[in-house]
């Protein structure tokens, strides 16, 4: 069964497989190809064989019938000649005895004589001498010779040849079992039939093999195409979010500064002005407004920063700032789901550089992933540490539902998603993996079902290589090397190594 499972092509069972999207039912296509090609290839072969079969049978039947009739007529001629010299029943019986021995008779090759009234003159293997008349075909007594099919009283289908002995009322009858002819043509044909069956099997196998190969190729290219499409869609989505964010931030900045200056003027009037303040509470109130304006300013600046760093470029990055930017983006969602976010103090990493937007995206994907895994209630922990001088270790863990050991190796594959909705396209972790790979980093997952999941990523302090020049992300294929970590890691721990 295992080997059968392995033989099954990738497109066979996945109705929701991305390669089977866009109305391409590849399983049905495969069946259609196999059916049509089989019909085209096999029908001439089968038809030719059948025609040959029938032709051979008919030729042999006709030939042997003629031969049987001829020999009966010859025998009847000889008997007639003898009887004309000595016309008595006794001599007829003698003649019959001779012929009987000559023809090597038996139950399958019966020979007897009947007279004009239908009575058997000689014994028969199939008929009694007394009751024979009623069951014999009447044609025997009216015609001079021929071949007919009939059934004997004991139920055997026979081929009956008969010839009138000229000058006498007697008719010579030979009965042969109907299927005796089969031996003549069927046996050699059976060998051919075997040969036909083996060739049909080979042809079918090769057709199936070719169809599987072709449809497999279609499936693979379709999958690649859709992966690229999804990737583009994702990139476009990010870019439009960026444009929207910067547009909103810009438009808000102007009215925000009007509030800022007007309130500032109020404070100025209260502090620098000559008149005495009408109410002592006005000044702190105005200062509160200014504080709120400052907070709004921070948010719009963060939005602008998020939008600005859409193009990959290696630059010095403050991890703390990136983390706070991500938290600002996921905080509301986390709050709605009753999820607490814990961030341990982030150590300063002088000289840390990478593509800022990539780091932002990685944090965002991991944080969103963690929040989704928890659904409601839980703790999202982000921890940044520096265990080696040239490496930064970032841990993002949740107390969510966890990932089963079977699913664990698949989570970085594109289109793997535990969510069923269409936009949980299952690209988040694949993109994360690609980004980390581009940075020259490494990611490790530990998960216990029901307890939670922990992603541990290590990034080099100095970017080892520049991001892809075309700005594209490299999604991992299905062949991500996944190997179990050492035995002391928790259940379901997997380590995804860097691809060279």
């Amino acid at each position, binding site marked *: 069964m295992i080997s059968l499972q392995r033989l099954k092509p990738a497109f066979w069972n996945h109705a929701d497989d991305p390669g089977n999207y866009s109305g391409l039912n590849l399983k049905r296509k495969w069946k259609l190809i196999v059916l049509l090609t089989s019909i085209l290839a096999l029908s001439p072969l089968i038809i030719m064989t059948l025609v040959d079969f029938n032709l051979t049978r008919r030729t042999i039947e006709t030939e042997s019938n003629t031969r049987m009739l001829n020999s009966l007529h010859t025998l009847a001629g000889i008997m007639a000649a003898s009887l004309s010299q000595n016309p008595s029943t006794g001599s007829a019986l003698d003649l019959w005895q001779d012929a009987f021995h000559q023809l090597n008779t038996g139950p399958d090759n019966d020979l007897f004589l009947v007279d004009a009234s239908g009575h058997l003159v000689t014994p028969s293997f199939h008929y009694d001498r007394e009751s024979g008349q009623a069951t014999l075909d009447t044609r025997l007594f009216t015609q001079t010779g021929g071949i007919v099919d009939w059934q004997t009283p004991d139920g055997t289908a026979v081929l009956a040849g008969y010839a009138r002995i000229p000058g006498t009322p007697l008719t010579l009858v030979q009965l042969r079992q109907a299927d005796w002819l089969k031996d003549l043509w069927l046996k050699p044909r059976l060998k051919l039939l075997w040969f036909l069956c083996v060739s049909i099997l080979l042809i079918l196998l090769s057709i199936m093999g070719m169809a599987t190969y072709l449809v497999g190729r279609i499936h693979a290219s379709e999958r690649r195409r859709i992966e690229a499409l999804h990737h583009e869609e994702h990139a476009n989505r990010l870019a439009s979010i960026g444009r929207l964010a*910067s547009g909103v931030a*810009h*438009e808000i*900045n*102007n009215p*925000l*500064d*009007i*509030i*800022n*200056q*007007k309130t*500032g*003027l109020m404070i*100025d*009037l209260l502090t*620098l*002005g000559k008149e005495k303040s009408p109410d002592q509470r006005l000044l702190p109130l105005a200062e509160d407004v200014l504080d709120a*304006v*400052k907070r*709004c*300013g921070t948010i719009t*600046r963060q939005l*602008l920063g998020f939008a*600005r760093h859409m193009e990959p470029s290696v630059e010095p990055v403050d991890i703390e700032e990136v983390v706070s930017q991500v938290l600002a983006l996921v905080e509301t969602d986390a709050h709605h789901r009753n999820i607490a976010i814990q961030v341990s103090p982030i150590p300063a990493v002088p000289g840390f550089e990478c593509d800022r937007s990539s780091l932002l995206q990685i944090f965002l994907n991991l944080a969103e992933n963690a929040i989704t895994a928890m659904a409601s209630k839980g703790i999202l922990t982000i921890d940044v540490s520096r265990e080696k001088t040239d490496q930064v270790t970032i841990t993002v863990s949740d107390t969510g539902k966890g990932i089963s050991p079977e699913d664990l190796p698949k989570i970085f594959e594109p289109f793997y998603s535990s969510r069923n909705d269409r936009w949980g396209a299952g690209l988040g972790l694949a993109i994360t993996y690609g980004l980390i790979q581009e940075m020259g980093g490494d990611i490790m997952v530990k998960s216990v079902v029901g307890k939670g999941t922990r992603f541990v990523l290590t990034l080099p302090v100095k970017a080892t290589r520049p991001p892809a020049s075309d700005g594209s992300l490299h999604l991992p294929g299905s062949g991500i090397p996944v190997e179990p970590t050492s035995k002391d890691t928790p259940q379901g721990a997997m380590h995804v190594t860097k691809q060279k």
Partner: protein
Amino acid sequence: MGLKILLVDDEQDFVETLSERLQMRDMDSHAVFDGKTALAQVQSHPPQVMIIDLKMPGMDGIQVLRQVKQTHPCIRVIILTGHGSEQDRKICMDLGASAYFQKPVDIDELNAAIRQGPGNGPPNPSGADDFNHSFNTGCRQT
């Protein structure tokens, strides 16, 4: 009266308030609402410091900055915008702006930038040259 300042911004409400606040800080500030008026004002009553918004109908802030720097290199220009990108910032600094602020701006920071001159902003040798030039050659006009 203190420094002569010309504010250029199409947001009238904003620029008038800011002007008033600067006046309260002993500056001779005056607000105009578009680039053309600003350039005319520079010709007739050249200020010492200009505060310019980048995005304005008609002539935009970068054009105003370029023309002012061509005709009056000794006027210090501070850019104050709600639409600033990293690229805009670079262009402005290359054109000789002394400082670049993103709205909403803190009045004390702006005040400091106006009084201290180009040293307050990011390192900008050309701006510093202009500043020194204006003092050394006496191109400062009244």
